[in-house]
């Protein structure tokens, strides 16, 4: 069963540093753009369906308050408005897995999740696994050790999915890993190395 997000990292993230790096540079300009959208709306007669909705997101233990179009996906909210670009957009249709994050510990496709739907739930992304200069999460280290990527674009989603896979208890055999990691496409086709990485990290995560 899913555990809380702190289990997914080797040590806790410095929230002050995290805020300094992202929220002040990315979230605030967004409010400016949203305000501009609202201003032009006032010049036109029909009611403005794009009026920004005030919402709260909790990502990697950090709380964000954003004014977003209600149609904004969790993926776009993180990438375009919070400044967390580790989660990738590969299809926007839930078909490739590059956007996989953990929501309350469960793997979730951020491109198929509206930001407004995960308010007050704990979202963990690849950026939440290790401190900038600190030790890597066992799954990240296993991906390095086994060369479980080439171009690296699907990798954040693979790693988040792999952590979910282990926590779900779907990593007991290579066949199970292959099956339960098949929602994450790696076009460079590092699959055998991904299986080896999950196998290695499982031992460490459970040990």
């Amino acid at each position, binding site marked *: 069963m899913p555990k809380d997000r702190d289990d997914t990292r080797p040590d806790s993230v410095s929230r002050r540093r995290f805020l300094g790096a992202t929220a002040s*540079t*990315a979230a605030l*300009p967004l409010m400016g753009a*949203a305000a*501009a*959208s*609202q201003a*032009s709306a006032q010049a*036109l007669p029909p009611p403005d369906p*794009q009026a920004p909705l005030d919402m709260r997101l909790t990502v990697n233990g950090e709380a964000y308050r954003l004014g977003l179009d209600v*149609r*904004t996906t969790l993926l*776009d909210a993180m*990438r*375009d408005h919070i*400044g*967390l*670009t*580790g*989660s*990738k*957009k*590969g*299809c*926007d*249709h839930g*078909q*490739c897995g*590059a956007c996989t994050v953990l929501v309350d510990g469960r793997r979730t496709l951020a491109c198929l999740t509206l930001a407004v739907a995960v308010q007050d739930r704990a979202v963990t*992304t*690849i950026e939440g696994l290790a401190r900038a200069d600190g030790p*890597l999460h066992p799954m*990240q*280290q296993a*991906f390095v*050790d*086994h*060369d*479980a*990527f*080439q*171009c*690296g*674009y699907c990798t*954040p989603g693979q790693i988040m999915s792999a952590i979910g896979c282990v926590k779900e208890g779907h990593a007991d055999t290579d066949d199970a890993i*292959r*099956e339960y*990691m*098949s*929602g994450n*496409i*790696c*076009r*460079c*086709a*590092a*699959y*055998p*190395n991904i299986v*080896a990485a999950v196998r290695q990290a499982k031992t460490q995560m459970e040990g």
Partner: protein
Amino acid sequence: MVDAAAPAPKANMGDPVPRYDARAKVTGSALYASDVALPDVAYAFLLSSAIAKGRIKSFDLREARALPGVLDILTHENIGEAIRKVKFFTEGGPASNSILPLGSAEIAYGGQTIAVVLANTYEVARDAAHRVKVDYEVDRPTATFESPGAVDQELATQNKKHDDPKVGDFAAAYATAPVKIDVAYSTPAQHHNPIELFATQCGWNGSQLTVHEPSQNVYGLKNGLATQLGIEPSQVRVVSPFIGGAFGSKGALTQRTALVAIAARKLGRPVKLVPTREQGFTVATYRAETKHRIKLGATRDGKLQALSHDGFEVTSRPDPYAVAGTDASTRMYACPNITSNVTIVRADRSTPGFMRAPAETPYFFALESAMDELAVALAMDPVELRRLNDTMKEPIKSLPYTSRTLMPCFDQASEAFGWSKRNPQPGSMRDGDWLIGWGCATSAYPTQMAPATARVSLFPDGTARVEAASHEIGNGIYTVAGQTAAERLGVPVGKVQVLMGDTDLPPAPVSGGSISTASVCSAVAQACDAIRAKLGDNGTGAVPTVDLVATLKERGLGSVQEYAEWMPHGAAKGGMQMLYKGAAQPIGGAKLPDRIQFAFGAQFVEVRVHARTREIRVPRIVGAFASGRIMNTRTAHSQYMGGMIWGIGSALHEKTEIDANAARYVNTNLADYLVPVNADVVDVQVIMVPEEDTLVNPLGIKGIGEIGIVGTSAAIANAIYHATGQRLRDLPLRIDSLVEAA
């Protein structure tokens, strides 16, 4: 620790150093083009043509423009400035096709970009794009081979550089050959589908334009875009430090870049475009569908006497694109009488382009399937058929191979696979409900290079820096360029900084044709050797004979920096100037006047075909490859393995479906365009066969990014024949192929 991902180096192989960019890639800190945060960015959404042929009568933009947050909508009617024409790349230019972006009302292919919607947010841009109404005048389009309106042209009449390989008297030799086959094959349209979408961000600072776009050729993009916009190349900077998969799809200048640049200039703020997965099928290029007819004639003991390979390839109306794999397929085996022909078939489609082993993937499916059919006709082991016809000289002009280690690859792979236990009788090997089949095929890929430059610096603190505008597409070029400098300068690899993917750096050629490692590492080594000479080391070996850092310190120098221009064998005079224009052509393979250079390999596949459902699985595949010097056995292993799995996808999964009436792609998403997933791949064994070839370049590097996919699909088809007795000649090979063939 024994780790399949990091094989122990054998002779002429470098250490399996972990990737230079590994930490950045597993922490999410590697910034790809769409990750870069530009201040006050506006969002673009493309509108794609719903028809494949005809013209736009009118747009109704009113509803879209009325949407709050919409900033502008660019169409051919209002773009306000003509984008200047640049040459298509087979004419020596950078463009992926000859159609001017938003150049007119004419529609040349389905999915052509017809408008760019700009808005404050992505959500509004997408919403507005769906509210644009387009009134088309629709003409009946030509979809593919044999569609009404398809025009066949011999490639040689359309591309003056193409010359169909021929030797001897094929017709006479074939007529009298005691054993012969005459067979036809086909391969489908396929799309690269890198997981990174075809993003572009553009921002102007006064008259200076910065472009963030994943590119396999940043100098080509810079120069082509400058021409399109009528500005100086010095006004354009392209930044592309990480490319999220390319496979050929990100090598050319597509229509989108100039449109985003113009939009950013009009708005006076940066613009971000991330086309959808569906749009990616027509924003970039693809592998066109091909057909083949092969005739082989042999003596009763298996000596090839006659070989004919005719290829047919779909292309667009405006561009005579062709991969013309007969250049390679006619040169693999000793044979005195050879003929070949390539015909292009014009349809109302976007222009195809390079996709991993563009020529060899389809043409070797045909050749290596045909060789297996000949082996069956001769009742001969297919490995022995290759051995009997192995040659150290290509047969067309009798040019010598610089090296050719084909049969050692066959021998090592066949031993690892257990080929000697194979019962040649089709349908003879079975495990319960599963029919087991074993097949093999030859892999080969031309060894090409292009002019390249590098700047290398050595500092008194024992660090070094390598700068070259090459492209990290997953090939490991950061890592192997750093390793090259570390070895030649005698510093630890961890002390070498590598900067790439930026036109502010010295130019590197297009990262295509498996040329990057050979070209860029050669330039890096040359710059390192200049540093060594400057510091009193006149040795020519890989490792310096004096302590360079100590010498640098003794002389009280702040740094030593050298810039090198490296030219491959056979490069045209002026190649270096072309490199600076982003237009240096790869040279090598079968295109040299004095010799031929190829890498070789052999692949062995086990398939399991379910006796009742006809489901096809590939539980194991063994590939052995000899590609000259291996710089890093870890990154090389991954590239070979990735190529082989691409081969599995090419054989069993990948096909872009084309609507025969509408000439539009049907399965434009990753659920319907099938690619291999983890569960499709079980046991992949890569064997690196040592090979030394210092003729190809002083470091002896051949290039490995593409060879892994070549021949795989034939090996799988050959294995399916062995399992079932059914010969499948049309890719992809699926359950329905076996049912239809039964």
